[in-house]
C-alpha cells in the first residue's frame, strides 16, 4: 500500500520562500504596509515548525508517557495564551487565561483521550504519533471557538451595558439578563466548525486529509480519519465554547449580581 514518498529537498523549499519574498516586494511597492508582517510571519512559521519537527522526532523516539503529557500541557498553555491575546476586552486578573485554558482542558483533553481510548485505540493509548496530532487539531479549533465566544460575550456586554442593567433594574437575575448575549456568543464560537463541516470536500479539501493523502495514505482511510477528526473537533469546540461562555458570563457579575465591567480591561 505504502508508496514511495517524494522527498522535499531544502533548495526546493527555498523556491517557495522566494515566491513569498516576491509577494513581499509587490506589497511593499503597492504600499499595503504588509510586507514586514508577511516576512516576519513566514519566518516565524518556518522556525516554529522546524522546532516542532525536532521535538516530535525526539518525542516519537522516546514515547514515554510523562514526555507526551508534558508536551500536551505546553500546547494547552500556549493555546490559553493565544485565547487571551485574541480578546479585545479581556478579563483582568488572569481570568481570561484561566477560563480559556480550563474550558479547553475539559473539552479538548477529554475528547482526545476519549478518542484515543475508545475509538482509535493505539497501543499504548498515549502513542505520540496519534495523541499529539489529534490533540493539536482539537486544541487549534477549540481555541478558535473559545476565543470567538469569549470575545463576542465581553464585547457585547460592554456595548449593551445599559440594556443589561435595565433588565437587572426590573428584577431579572444575572442569568436572564445576559441570556441572549450568551446564546449569541456561543453561536459565534460554533459557527466556524459548522460551516467547515458543511463545506468539507465540496469547497475545501481539509488540510489533514490532504496531508495524509500526500503522505501516501489511501484516500478512503484518509477520509475516515478526517470524518473522525471533524466529529471530535465539533464536539470539543462546542463543549469548550459553552463552558467558556458560561464561566465568563458568570464572571461578568459579582455575588450581588451586579454587572462588573470594571473586570474587563
Amino acid at each position, binding site marked *: 500500500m505504502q508508496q514511495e514518498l517524494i522527498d522535499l529537498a531544502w533548495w526546493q523549499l527555498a523556491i517557495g520562500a522566494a515566491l513569498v519574498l516576491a509577494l513581499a516586494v509587490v506589497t511593499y511597492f503597492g504600499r499595503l504596509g504588509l510586507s514586514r508582517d508577511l516576512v516576519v510571519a513566514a519566518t516565524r512559521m518556518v522556525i516554529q515548525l522546524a522546532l516542532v519537527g525536532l521535538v516530535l522526532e525526539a518525542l516519537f523516539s522516546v514515547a514515554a508517557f510523562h514526555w507526551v503529557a508534558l508536551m500536551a500541557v505546553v500546547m494547552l498553555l500556549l493555546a490559553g495564551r493565544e485565547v487571551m491575546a485574541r480578546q479585545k476586552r479581556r478579563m483582568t486578573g488572569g481570568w481570561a487565561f484561566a477560563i480559556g485554558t480550563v474550558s479547553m482542558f475539559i473539552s479538548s483533553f477529554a475528547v482526545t483521550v476519549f478518542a484515543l481510548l475508545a475509538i482509535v485505540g493505539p497501543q499504548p493509548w498515549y502513542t505520540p504519533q496519534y495523541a499529539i496530532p489529534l490533540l493539536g487539531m482539537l486544541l487549534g479549533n477549540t481555541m478558535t471557538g473559545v476565543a470567538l465566544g469569549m470575545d463576542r460575550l465581553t464585547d457585547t456586554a460592554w456595548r449593551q451595558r445599559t440594556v443589561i442593567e435595565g433588565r437587572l433594574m426590573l*428584577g431579572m437575575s*444575572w442569568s436572564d439578563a445576559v441570556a441572549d448575549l450568551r446564546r449569541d456568543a456561543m453561536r459565534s464560537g460554533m459557527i466556524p466548525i459548522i460551516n467547515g463541516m458543511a463545506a468539507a470536500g465540496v469547497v475545501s479539501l481539509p488540510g489533514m486529509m490532504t496531508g495524509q493523502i500526500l503522505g501516501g495514505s489511501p484516500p478512503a482511510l484518509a477520509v475516515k480519519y478526517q470524518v473522525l477528526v471533524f466529529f471530535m473537533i465539533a464536539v470539543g469546540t462546542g463543549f469548550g465554547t459553552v463552558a467558556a461562555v458560561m464561566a465568563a458570563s458568570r464572571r461578568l457579575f459579582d455575588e450581588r449580581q451586579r*454587572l462588573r465591567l470594571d473586570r474587563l480591561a
Partner: protein
Amino acid sequence: MGEAAGQSKERADGGDALVLRALGVGPLRGVNLEVEPGEIVCLSGESGSGKTRLLRAIADLEPHEGEAALGSDERAAVAAHCWRGWVMLVPAESSWWADTVKEHFLDPVPGSMEAFGFDEGALEWEIGRLSSGEKQRLAVLRALSHEPRALLLDEPTANLDPALARQVEAWLRDYCRREGMPVLWVAHDQDQIARVGDRHFAIRGDRLEEQPCSRN
C-alpha cells in the same frame, strides 16, 4: 420627620419603609435616611453630585458601603434580583431591548396608561418609533407593572411638557400614597419638588441636607 411619619400612618396601611444606613458611594458618605410608606422624598443636587449613583447604590447596582432594608427585609439577606424587583430604579435614560413595548411589560397597573397619556394600543407600539418623552413615561409604567414595593425615580418627567408632567406626577403621588410605597425622587425643578415632595434633601458635598418643604 415626625410630622411626615404621622401623616404616613393615616394614608398608608400596607407598605414598608425604605431604610438606608450609612450608605456611601461616589462623593457621598454615611447617608442615613428612612423613607416612610407612601412618602415621597425628593433629592436634588448639581450634576455630578452623586444623585444617580446614590439611587444605583440603593438598587445595589454598583459596589458601595452601607446597608439598606425594606421594612424588616434586610437587603443583605435577600437575593439581589429580588431586592431590585422590590426596590425598583427607573433611570433617566431607559433601555429597551425587544421589538414592541408589550414585551417589556407585565400587566400595566389599571388606569395608569390613561393617566400617563396613553391608550391601550400603546402596548403594541414599536420601540423604534418612540419619542424620548414616550420612552420616559413608558419606563415608569413598565416599572410599576412589575409591582415594586419601593420606587427610585431619576428625573422621571425631565423630557415631558409641563401639563403632562403635572398630570403624571399627580397620578404617581396618589398611587404611591394609596399603595404605601416609599419613593425617592430625584428632581431639579423647585416647583415640582414643592408639589410632590413630603421632604426634600439637597446633596451638599458628602452628605444630604434637609431643605424646608413649602408644601402643606
